[in-house]
């Protein structure tokens, strides 16, 4: 997926990380949210490699640190997720508009935050989340990249969706779909 404007390994990296997580499923289920996020972060960090490994690893570790409350209401989810996204911004020295996964992750953060403030119902939250993720992902298409490998390509990167933005969107949409089932 990052073949066009990256080095072609993003999906492999992600799959390696997800596979490692799957193997720990039984263990993770035993843990509270904080410990589970922490462990997931460490696992992603030590199995994925690449830019995305350090970023997603950092995200989950930070989410683990933020998840003190066992109670997972929308506000808690929003706070925890935001802590994760902020850690990516800090680690990657990047922000929205640089053609990275943050272009998916930040709009979702904003959507969660405003839905939490407005106490929106679950269906709305999940639908808004998917819209934000998808629009964010798509917004990377016409961007110039200023972070990550695609930045080396200058104008040649325009017209391609960022791999990290795309996989983040996919994952967030799958999560939203799963949550809407129960």
């Amino acid at each position, binding site marked *: 997926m990052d*073949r066009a404007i990256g*080095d072609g390994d993003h999906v492999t990296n992600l799959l390696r990380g997800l596979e490692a997580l799957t193997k720990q499923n039984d263990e993770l289920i035993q843990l509270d949210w904080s410990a589970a996020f922490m462990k997931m972060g460490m696992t992603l960090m030590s199995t994925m490699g690449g830019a995305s490994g350090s970023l997603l690893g950092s995200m989950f570790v930070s989410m683990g640190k933020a998840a003190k409350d066992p109670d997972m209401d929308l506000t808690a989810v929003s706070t925890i997720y935001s802590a994760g996204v902020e850690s990516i911004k800090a680690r990657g020295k990047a922000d929205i508009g640089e053609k990275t996964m943050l272009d998916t992750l930040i709009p979702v953060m904003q959507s969660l935050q405003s839905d939490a403030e407005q106490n929106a119902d679950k269906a709305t939250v999940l639908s808004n989340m998917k819209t934000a993720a998808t629009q964010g992902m798509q917004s990377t298409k016409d961007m110039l990249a200023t972070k990550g490998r695609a930045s*080396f*390509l200058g104008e040649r990167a325009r017209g391609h969706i960022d791999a990290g933005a795309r996989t983040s969107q996919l994952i967030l949409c799958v999560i939203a779909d799963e949550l809407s089932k129960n």
Partner: protein
Amino acid sequence: MKKLINAVDSVLEESLSGFARAHSDIIQFNQQPHFVSRKNKSENKVALISGGGAGHEPLHTGLVGKGMLDAACPGQVFTSPTPDQMMMAAQTVEAGAGVLFIVKNYAGDVMNFEIAAEMLDCPHETVLVNDDVSLPKDHSTGRRGVAGTLIVEKIVGAAAEAGADLATCKKLGDKVVNATASMGLALTSCTVPALGQPTFDITDNEVEMGVGIHGERGREIMNLTTADELVQILAKAIDEDLQPAKGQRVLLHVNGFGATPLMELYLVYDIAAHFFEERGIEIVRSLVGNYTTSLDMAGCSITLTLMDDEMLQYWDAPVHTAALRWGI
């Protein structure tokens, strides 16, 4: 994809195993997590650690040994290694004088090394290599680290071996980085095993000019023309960046990306050497060969380092690694 491999998932493991066997006289290989380290640890020496995605061999594993690196952490092919590799490597080779990380400037490498460094509880410094002048100096992520990395590792490795302390090694590393410029071109893409197809498409009369070392596209596509014209473009970019004075002594390194025969690399060297000598620059050391590769990519890069007495002395100092050896 035509490769001498058994399975996409086991390439790295099996290759490292072969490397470890073939060079068991000088290195040892740690399986979990992956890193290669020097067999004989000397006390009170700054420990040099580098690493990065695999697929650039002999960089970095082939540069572990006396007078150069203490450890190298290979990631998956073209994928930055993970922090636990650098942590464990550091714990293994640290010898009371701190750790110097030599990191090629790529987001993934930088961040993963950073995380390792943050968790480390011994003195440490990082030298960031960013010698690729195909990108402007003020590029948003900085320039990439490419074939100049070997030169940094050799010179700082010799200094560490001679007893220089951490601050001195760090300063020397930065000096070499600032004195070094590289630029490369590709005639073909490489094929990453996990991908199974060339990373980019390129026609028979195109050249990717200004490429990195991960099979990513270059700065621009050009028409394939004579070696003279192509090498001039590389040499000019380097010359404009470093602006060496007349009489300046330099090290000229022509690096192959893996699939370009020595016959062509020496031809490229001839053109580049001529270019710089015509400008009154004195080539005092040379290195020609496939050192910082991109798997099976055809193409080459040129690296120039402005040398002074200190750097020359360290370049000439004995080294015994799998890929670079003299004086021992």
